[in-house]
Structures are given as structure tokens and as C-alpha cells.
């Protein structure tokens, strides 16, 4: 088993190794709809976002069929602070962000069916840059400082239903309402003694749309769980600029995710997930830019390290790689991370505390820039019994 663990670590380290980058800078998260977010909890984060099928309670709002495995009402929330360091010849600096990627409740409505609702992130559009430049005028050159910011993003509100249709099979479906706003601003400040008025403008871009997700989880053996999720967004996104009162419709893609969880021993679980989303179908919606299919792979292991009378402590290790959808200067951006997590199940499952540390990076082949990030995810869950 130790060899197997080392092999996983080597593979994860390879995923994290930075690629060679050339070309022009475009900051990550500034293209298209932004940087994708997932409504996953700290446990799934620690297992490389393998949240399609999991032994034990799967609290991430990815596969609605997983709700069927809950037998008590509960509420849980995840908090996710992240430190980013941007490195490059053309840009550098540190980011600090904090998000609530998942807030979710579940309520069993019968022996078989569980109803859920949740909020989660969908796209992050927080970024800000600053630079100095020179304006050439008839009176000579004039230096100015410009700041461009984007704050906000798109969230998803989910109403979910999961149920067991047999001992081994669970099905679920989710109605998703997408909503959000990004507040864009640009300010340009000229040299103080130039007597030039500063330029400042801002706009709010609002997003609305809806979609659905269908999930299944199948356990042919007690030690094996496999799952699949299909996401379908028939309405697309209606994007509205409240400053110019203009509107545009953007298609949203369909996506497929599959995953599996294997109980290797009583203390050890391994999980893996793969996914694909056909963002390339949106290419026409982003003139001057483009979108490419996104895919993702991740996995991890969970070891029950300590077991008490009614509590358990888990140690988790995982890694993941993801191709992000919005192509930047011809380069397909990626994100990869290695994660280490701790989790505790308390009072016989009435409470759960999970924490995950992720060390990762983002970049793209054509960028002269890379981001390193350190992300923490903390989740707290409370169940009625």
C-alpha cells in the first residue's frame, strides 16, 4: 500500500509542476465568465474534488443522488479563503480572497427521498490590476495610473431531490438557478500637478439563467460506489449591462461527470472523478475570445486514522488537474493542486468538521504569468441525528 501511496504522490507532484509559458499576459479569471467555482465541501476538496460518488456522507452539491444516502436532516457550510501569488515579468502581486463555495441543507422527506437546497459558487470574477502609463499629448507626455477592477461573480441556487430506487441505486435531480453580478470599474489618475481630472467609470453586469443536473449513484458492491452526473442548462445565461441597458444571451454547456469510490479496507477509501463540459459550444458567444471544452480529473485517498467511541478522525490526500474553459490568448488555462485534509466525524455522525489545505497553481501555455495559490477549505456540518 505504501508503494501505491508513493505513486499517487508522484503523479500529483507531476500535475503540479509548472509548464513553460510564452506569449502575452492575460490574467487568469479575466476572460469569459471568469474562473469556475465548484460547490464542494472540504472533504471533496481533500480528495481532489472527487465528489461524484463517495463512501460516507457526500456533502458536495455535485451529484444530487448522493443526497439519498443521508438519513437525517442537516445543514452545512464551507468557507474557503485563498491566497494567490501572481508571478511573471509583466505582473506580480498577492491576492487574498475568501468565498463561501457551499451552503446547503438537506431534509429527508421519506425513507427513500431526501430534499435539499443549496447555494454555491459557479464563476468567480474577482480581479484587479494596476499599472502606470504615459499619455502623449500636444503639450508633452503625461503619466497616469490606471486601476481596473472586477468584483463579483455568478452563484448557483440549487433545489435538489435524491432518492433510492433500489438497494444499490440512487437517483437525483437538481434544479439550478444561476444569478450574479460583476461590478466593473476603471479609474485613471493623472499626475497631481497636471490639473487633469481623473477618469472613473463603473458598470454592473448581471447574470441570470437556469439549468438542471441529473445524477445517479450505483453500489454494485458494498466496497464500490460509482456515480455519474449530467448537467444541462437549457436557458443559458441572460447577461445584462445595467449601465447601457443592453442584454445578451450566452449558452451554457452540458457536462458529464463520472466518479467512483472504492473501500480499500475498513479504514481506507480511494475516490476518483472525471468530468467534461462542452464549453466550446459557446465559442460564438465570446467574440474576440474563445471557449474550449473543460475537463477535469481528480482523486484522493481517505484514511480513518483514529476511531473513538462515537467519533473518528480522517486524514486525506488528493490531487487534481483541470482544464479551464475560457481560452486566453490562444492558451488553454489549467489549474492543478495537491491537497491534504483532516476531518472529524463527531457524536456518531451528528457533526462533521473538515479542513483542507490545497497547494496549487494556475497558468496557461500562452501566458507570461502563473498563479500559485494556497487554499483552505473549512466545512462544518450538523445533522439532527
Amino acid at each position, binding site marked *: 500500500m505504501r508503494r501505491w501511496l508513493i505513486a499517487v504522490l508522484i503523479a500529483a507532484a507531476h500535475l503540479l509542476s509548472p509548464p513553460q509559458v510564452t506569449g502575452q499576459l492575460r490574467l487568469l479569471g479575466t476572460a469569459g465568465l471568469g474562473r469556475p467555482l465548484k460547490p464542494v465541501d472540504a472533504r471533496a476538496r481533500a480528495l481532489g474534488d472527487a465528489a461524484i460518488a463517495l463512501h460516507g456522507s457526500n456533502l458536495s452539491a455535485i451529484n444530487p443522488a448522493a443526497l439519498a444516502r443521508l438519513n437525517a436532516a442537516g445543514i452545512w457550510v464551507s468557507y474557503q479563503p485563498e491566497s494567490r501569488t501572481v508571478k511573471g515579468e509583466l505582473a506580480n502581486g498577492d491576492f487574498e480572497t475568501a468565498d*463561501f463555495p457551499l451552503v446547503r441543507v438537506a431534509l429527508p422527506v421519506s425513507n427513500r427521498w431526501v430534499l435539499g437546497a443549496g447555494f454555491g459558487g459557479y464563476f468567480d470574477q474577482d480581479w484587479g490590476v494596476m499599472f502606470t*502609463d504615459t499619455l502623449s499629448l500636444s503639450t508633452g507626455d503625461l503619466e497616469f495610473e490606471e486601476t481596473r477592477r472586477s468584483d463579483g461573480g455568478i452563484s448557483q441556487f440549487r433545489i435538489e431531490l435524491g432518492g433510492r430506487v433500489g438497494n444499490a441505486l440512487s437517483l437525483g435531480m437538481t434544479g439550478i438557478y444561476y444569478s450574479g453580478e460583476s461590478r*466593473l470599474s476603471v479609474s485613471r489618475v493623472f499626475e497631481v500637478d497636471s490639473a487633469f481630472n481623473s477618469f472613473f467609470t463603473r458598470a454592473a*453586469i448581471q447574470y441570470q439563467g437556469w439549468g438542471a443536473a441529473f445524477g445517479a449513484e450505483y453500489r454494485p458492491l458494498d466496497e464500490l460506489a460509482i456515480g455519474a452526473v449530467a448537467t444541462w442548462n437549457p436557458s443559458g445565461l441572460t447577461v445584462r449591462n445595467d*449601465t447601457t441597458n443592453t442584454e445578451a444571451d450566452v449558452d451554457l454547456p452540458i457536462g458529464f461527470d463520472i466518479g467512483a469510490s472504492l473501500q480499500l479496507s475498513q479504514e481506507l477509501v480511494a475516490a476518483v472523478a472525471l468530468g467534461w463540459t462542452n464549453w466550446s459550444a459557446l465559442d460564438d458567444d*465570446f467574440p474576440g475570445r474563445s471557449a474550449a471544452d473543460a475537463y477535469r480529473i481528480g482523486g484522493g485517498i481517505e484514511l480513518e486514522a483514529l476511531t473513538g467511541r462515537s467519533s473518528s478522525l480522517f486524514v486525506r490526500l488528493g490531487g487534481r488537474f483541470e482544464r479551464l474553459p475560457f481560452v486566453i490568448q490562444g492558451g488553454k488555462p489549467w489549474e492543478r493542486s495537491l491537497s491534504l485534509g483532516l476531518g472529524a466525524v463527531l457524536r456518531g455522525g451528528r457533526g462533521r468538521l473538515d479542513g483542507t489545505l490545497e497547494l496549487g497553481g494556475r497558468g496557461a501555455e500562452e501566458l507570461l504569468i502563473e498563479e500559485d495559490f494556497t487554499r483552505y477549505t473549512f466545512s462544518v456540518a450538523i445533522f439532527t441525528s
Partner: protein
Amino acid sequence: MSTPRHAALVVALALAVGACGRDEIISVDSEAAPGQTSQTREALLTPDRLDAWIDTLYSGFARPSSATYLQIEEGTPNLISRALFRFGIIQDSVFLADTVSRALRFDSVRVVAGMDTLRTVLSSSGTTLRLLAVGQQWDARSANWEFAVDTSGARIAWSAGPGGAFAEVLAEATLTELADSVIFELGARGDSLLRSWVDTTQENTGLALVVSDSGRAVLTAPRVQYRLVPEVEPDTSIVLRSFANARTFIFDRSVLPNLQGVLRIGGVDGWRVFAELIIPDSVPVEGSTSRFRMRGATINKAELIFVSLPPPVAPFAAETDFAATVFDLADDFRVYGAKTPVGDAVLGSELAFRVDSIAEGSELRFNITRRMATWARIASDSTPGPIRLMVRSLVEGGTFGFWEVGAVDGDVRYAPVLRVVFTPPIEFTVP
């Protein structure tokens, strides 16, 4: 947990979802910065690039009697100029020991005037200023070289011919070097002179200051200073002073007529430039063949640029630095002429005319950013009216001379220009 509590918790947590943290700013290279922006543009709008640019010139907003100085000059190539002033209020009693005591006599009577050393020019051998009694009545607001009174109702020539009618010499002061003030001691004549000013019910004919040889002196308002010896206490004296309540100066040059293509600012006659600009919403900009919309844009800077003509002929070129500023006009000067109501000064438009450094072709730039910003902010579904401006010296009558700049109808090399640096609004595209 009850269902309402569930719901409340869900709502609270949902609100927390929106309370995400925000990014810090990172430094990037300007060429590589992401996001949408708008380029700052510069438009140099000559009159032919506007829908209309009309300008004209009016004077008479100042006169020698309202000038901040008195100019006396003789024996120079410029002009002959003489100062007239009178003291209308002479205090001839004081309150002492609970009683009012009249003046037993006036001692140490002297006339004192401050001197503008920058504008005073003495001859190499010294310049003698002479204090004279004026020999006839004169009207401070209308007196000029030819006439003691020159109003629409009355015109009375100087009895001694052009240049004033003077009686006896009361005092002299010879200046060999510049000083802060010049003092004329009236000596024994002082007492009787002050009594004559007190005793008469008529306005006194006042005093004159002239240069008796050659040179130019620019003086501030004169004052008479004296010691009043009261009847009740003849051993004591009280120093009193009185400022001239009427003053002017007369000179042997007529006001210059308006000339085509010439605008004037400043001078003892108070020359003012009136202009009306009708600006199109979109304008051509430097470095591009396209027109860019200026209405709705941020006006980073706007300047009304006048181009200096050669300095006016002596003595009409401003003899010292002065400041000029731009005012809003409240109405159409083509209807109301010189009497067009004037609005507020355009904040920040004050400009120093440093006359020694203004050469022909120099650009005199008035900052009218605030006025242009007001224009640009007018709602896009409204039609903005013309921008009407008036340019005048900040202190009218502060200098004898003025400065000349080109007008729209003059030589195109001296034509005024409206320079606007603006940033059009960003039309953030979706998404």
C-alpha cells in the same frame, strides 16, 4: 430544530454567500493589462471644427477713477498723465474731556501716497513730483485730458486747455530713488488749505499730482495726514488722516478703437472678450481620422487657448503682470452687448499674464475644465446650449495697458483654439 429555524438559518447562510472577500490589486505591465478600458483623447478644436465660434470685444468696464492706482507721467515717449484727487472729509473737531473741541489749527499737514516701485520709472537725474491745487471743479468719473466734466449731460473743458487747470504749487518732492511712498509737506499752507476744504459747502477742487520734469510714477490712493490742535487743549495735538474720496488720472491718449481680428484683455478701460462656442457632440481627435463622442465623456482637461498678437503699441501694452480669468455669461451677448449679465467665474481658470515673457504667438491657456465638464454632463437626450464665456482681467483697472490676442475673424495663425482632453465612457460589453 423547527422548520422556521431551519429557514432562518438558510437565509442567513445564503446572505453570507454574498459576503465573499475581494481581491487585492496587482501590478501589471500596461500593455498586458486585462479588462476593458477607454483611451484618453485629445482634441484641438479650432473654430472651423466647432459648429460655431463667435467672439467680440467690449470695453468701459473700468476707468481711471476706478483704477487701483494713479499714474503720473511726463517727458517720456509714452504719454502725459496727471492725477487728480480731493479729500472730501476733513475732521476738524475732536472729543476731549467730555466736550467737543474744534481745531485751533492744523499742524504738520502732509499728503502721502504709496508708490508702486515696479511700475515707477525715474529719470537718471531724478524725477520731481509736484503737488498742485486744481483751479476748477472736475468730475472724477468723467474727467479726461480735454474736459474737466465729460458726461452725457454736461461737458466742461479745462479752463487752461487740455491737460487740466492748475493753480499754485503746494509742494514738490524729488525722487532720486524708488521708495515705498512719497510725502508732500504742505508747511504753512496746510492749515488754510484744510480749513478751506472744511468751511466750504461745495466740493473742493482738490489737488493734482504731476511730473514736472520727466519720469513716471505709479501711486496708490493718496491720504492727507495732519495734527489737529484742539482749542480746549492747545498744548496737545492729535494725528488724523483722511483718504481721497475722489481720484482719477487724465492722459493725452484716446481709447483705442476695436480692430478686426483683435481681442483685448485688461487695461484701464477694462477690455473684455466675449465668446460663444457651439460644440458638436463628437469631435475629431489627434492621431485618428475618426470622430469621438465628447458628450458624456469625462473631461480630463479643457483649455481655451488664445494666441498672443505682437504687444500693443506703447503705452497700451500692459506695463506689468496681471491675472485674467474666465466667467460664464448668463445670456446672449449678441442681444445684450456689453450689458450681458455675467455669471460665476469658471473655477480654476485664472491665468497669470507675465507680460515680459509673452511673445507674439505665445499661447495663453485658460483652464475651463469645469465648464466643459458641465457641458459634457448634459443628458444625451437634451440639446446643450452654446458655451458662453467672458474673459477679463481679474482686477479690472489694475494695469494701464492690456494684452491683445487673436480673434476668430483675424489671422488664422492667431485664431483661438479649444483644447479638450477627454475620456469617452467605457461601453462594457456583455459578458
